[in-house]
């Protein structure tokens, strides 16, 4: 058994976590508040990019406090009932069954419940997880830590995360902090590597501490020394930098054909590259004619990318690549070369924020597709609009969908444009109470049969009988 360095040098105590002093301080204060009963915020969410110490800090916190840890992550199936068994029972009772899955759950004492990768709960595979997480956040008797890269993926599913959870942001450590940490590890491992070498490894990691340690390990294993020359063994980790090279070659180089070769040399595909070129094009081409010509080429490139997607005919990538590089580069005829900074595609950040939303939409559409005996695509184009309105108008209709299509709260929430834990969505999942006043917007008609909806027949025609 040989320890992997990213594990071997994973800080065991918060004192040793690199960078992020503010986040660590907040985390400690929150943990301290558990010493005197249950604090108002029972859960904390640690948010930030990969490799900067979120999971490490959570486990280190438990060590410092002498707490046990119950961890669940995306490699475990996390349906509602599994989560309930592990997390909620674990949070309520001090005895806890020991299986291989639980890390170091000490008997008695406090336990830190860690839901790692909480932004990666997957549609049907993790059915019903969100309501259980909401319940956990509000009622847990043990400290709970949620860990996410993409906080929005979680908050859009749950108002509780936004209102009832302590948010702690983790940031990328500086290059200097990373280089210093690398020097310490190099010292312990007896690796010969000069400061310039360590600086380069730190710079290449682009703020990702784990990646930096990984590179130090993989460059030195078996040799015990790293030189500037041997750094070349590893491919570029800094894709961001590579992409700036491509954009630079397109917009800032007189040899237009060179841009084509630069793209070929970079470890990326044209679907990613076009986003970078698109982002920068309007800043670079200030002359309207240049802009029109540039976008014409980009538009053509996009057509070829679409053809690849639809047909899985990858030959078209070559045309797309040429059009977005040489095509755009040679479209500049009038404008002066720009000197501004090159930009990171805003679209990429937007897409990463909306990823969970897109998954939710896909799953919801496919459930409605089964119910309507048609395809998800047809549901989206012809049926979704009506289903939405019916959901908003009729409680009975919502109950029918929950029963017959097996909709989950976040899916119903998606249809209604509301959070999964909003009052209206939740009420549709509760048994209808005789005495409870009907919601004001509810359909007051007779209780409908599932197949003959008590809804406007004009709407249901196209909706339910569309083959």
């Amino acid at each position, binding site marked *: 058994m040989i320890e*992997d360095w990213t594990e071997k040098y994973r800080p065991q105590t918060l004192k040793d976590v690199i960078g992020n002093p503010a986040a660590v301080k907040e985390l400690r204060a929150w943990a301290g508040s558990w010493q005197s009963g249950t604090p108002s915020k029972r859960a904390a969410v640690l948010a930030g990019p*990969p*490799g900067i110490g979120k999971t490490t800090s959570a486990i280190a916190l438990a060590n410092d406090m002498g707490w046990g840890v119950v961890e669940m992550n995306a490699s475990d199936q996390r349906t509602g009932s599994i989560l309930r068994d592990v997390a909620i029972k674990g949070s309520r009772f001090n005895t806890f069954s020991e299986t291989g899955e639980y890390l170091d759950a000490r008997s008695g004492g406090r336990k830190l419940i860690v839901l790692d990768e909480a932004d990666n709960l997957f549609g049907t595979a993790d059915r019903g997880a969100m309501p259980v997480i909401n319940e956990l956040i509000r009622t847990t008797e043990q400290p709970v830590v949620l860990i996410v890269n993409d906080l929005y993926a979680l908050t859009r599913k749950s108002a509780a995360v936004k209102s009832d959870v302590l948010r702690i942001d983790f940031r990328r450590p500086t290059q200097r902090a990373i280089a210093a940490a690398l020097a310490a590890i190099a010292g312990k491992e007896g690796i010969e590597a000069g400061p310039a070498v360590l600086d380069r490894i730190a710079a290449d990691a682009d703020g990702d501490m784990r990646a930096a340690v990984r590179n130090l390990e*993989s460059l030195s294993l*078996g040799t015990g020394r790293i030189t500037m020359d041997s750094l*070349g063994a590893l*491919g570029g980790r800094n894709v961001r930098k590579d992409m700036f090279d491509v954009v630079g070659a397109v917009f800032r180089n007189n040899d237009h054909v060179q841009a084509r070769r630069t793209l070929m040399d970079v470890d990326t*595909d044209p679907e990613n590259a076009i986003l970078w070129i698109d982002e920068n094009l309007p800043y670079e081409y200030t002359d309207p004619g240049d802009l029109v010509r540039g976008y014409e080429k980009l538009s053509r490139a996009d057509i070829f990318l679409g053809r690849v997607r639809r047909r899985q005919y990858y*030959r078209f990538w070559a045309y797309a690549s040429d059009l977005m590089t040489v095509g755009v580069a040679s479209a500049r005829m009038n404008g002066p070369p720009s000197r501004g900074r090159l930009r990171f595609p805003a679209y990429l950040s937007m897409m990463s924020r909306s990823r969970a939303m897109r998954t939710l939409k896909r799953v919801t559409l496919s459930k409605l597709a089964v119910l309507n005996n048609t395809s998800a695509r047809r549901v989206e184009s012809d049926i979704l609009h009506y289903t939405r309105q019916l959901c908003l108008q009729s409680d009975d209709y919502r109950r029918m969908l929950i029963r017959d299509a097996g909709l989950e709260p976040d899916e119903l929430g998606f249809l209604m444009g509301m959070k999964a834990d909003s009052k209206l969505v939740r009420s549709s999942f509760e048994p209808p109470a005789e005495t409870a006043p009907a919601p004001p917007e509810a359909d007051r008609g007779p209780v409908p049969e599932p197949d003959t909806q008590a809804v406007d027949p004009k709407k249901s025609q196209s909706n339910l009988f569309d083959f």
Partner: protein
Amino acid sequence: MNEIWTEKYRPRTLGEVVGQKHVTERLKAYVAAGNMSHLLFTGPAGTGKTTCALAMAKEMFGDEWRGNLMELNASDERGIDVVRGKIKEFARTAPLGSASFKIIFMDEADALTSDAQAALRRTMERYSRICRFILSCNYASKIIDPIQSRCAIFRFSPLSHDDLREYLERIIELEGVDIDEDALEGLIHVARGDLRKAVNALQVSASMGRTITLDTVYQTTGMADPEAVKTMLETALGGDFFRAREMLDSIMIEYGLSGQDVIRQVHSTFFELSITDSEKVRLVDKTGEIEFRIVEGSNERIQLEALLAYLVMIGGGRR
């Protein structure tokens, strides 16, 4: 001839791997140390990613390599269930024999759904004491950041002319293949750094049972003589549609090429012609459109004639 040459001559050790010296030197050091980190191999087809993974596992584990290596192809097993089930199961069980860890080699890792990639993250860390991953893909950009963060990334480049040549010469000698110098060079040119393609083309050419000439190579690889293609394009740009069309016919009939084969070569030839950059771009765009129509349409000759007509027009603007 009852063997697949690419398998028969797949290097068994890291020392035999062609090219990628910067990679193999590191991998050899891992074998010497008896240790490695998680690895991500990126690069185009036929550059040695699978070969290096297999060779390293064999050297690392000796006779016990089979039990300690799990090979998966992510394009066949791409869902989250595989990651939570099969992979996790293998990762968490102890290595066999004297090995101190096991290796999971996942080919075409970019075919994993992003959900499945996300589910892989903690498994990679949780069981890293006893299990290391080697992921292989064409583009690192298709792998989510948290996975890249956990791996050392090795970039495999297309093989150089000399590396391809050295390797092919060895097979030619061992198999007693009769091939002339031009044909060998043609083979290397056609392969464009993809060793698997080169070896497959060599095996097919050799199976035709006579001295391999340049023509044999073009026939077996679906290529026309690059000079013939270039002459055809220049003739059309020079305004002679009929002559250019005759050349097209002879290329398609003599070499037995499909329209898609021809257009592929036409595309790569534009960058060798002495025309302006914006003309190159217009031609690339048009050629892509014509290739699309070949895929959609029924008569590829008509589509290629349309391209020649376009070349006549472009050339007319220059005369």
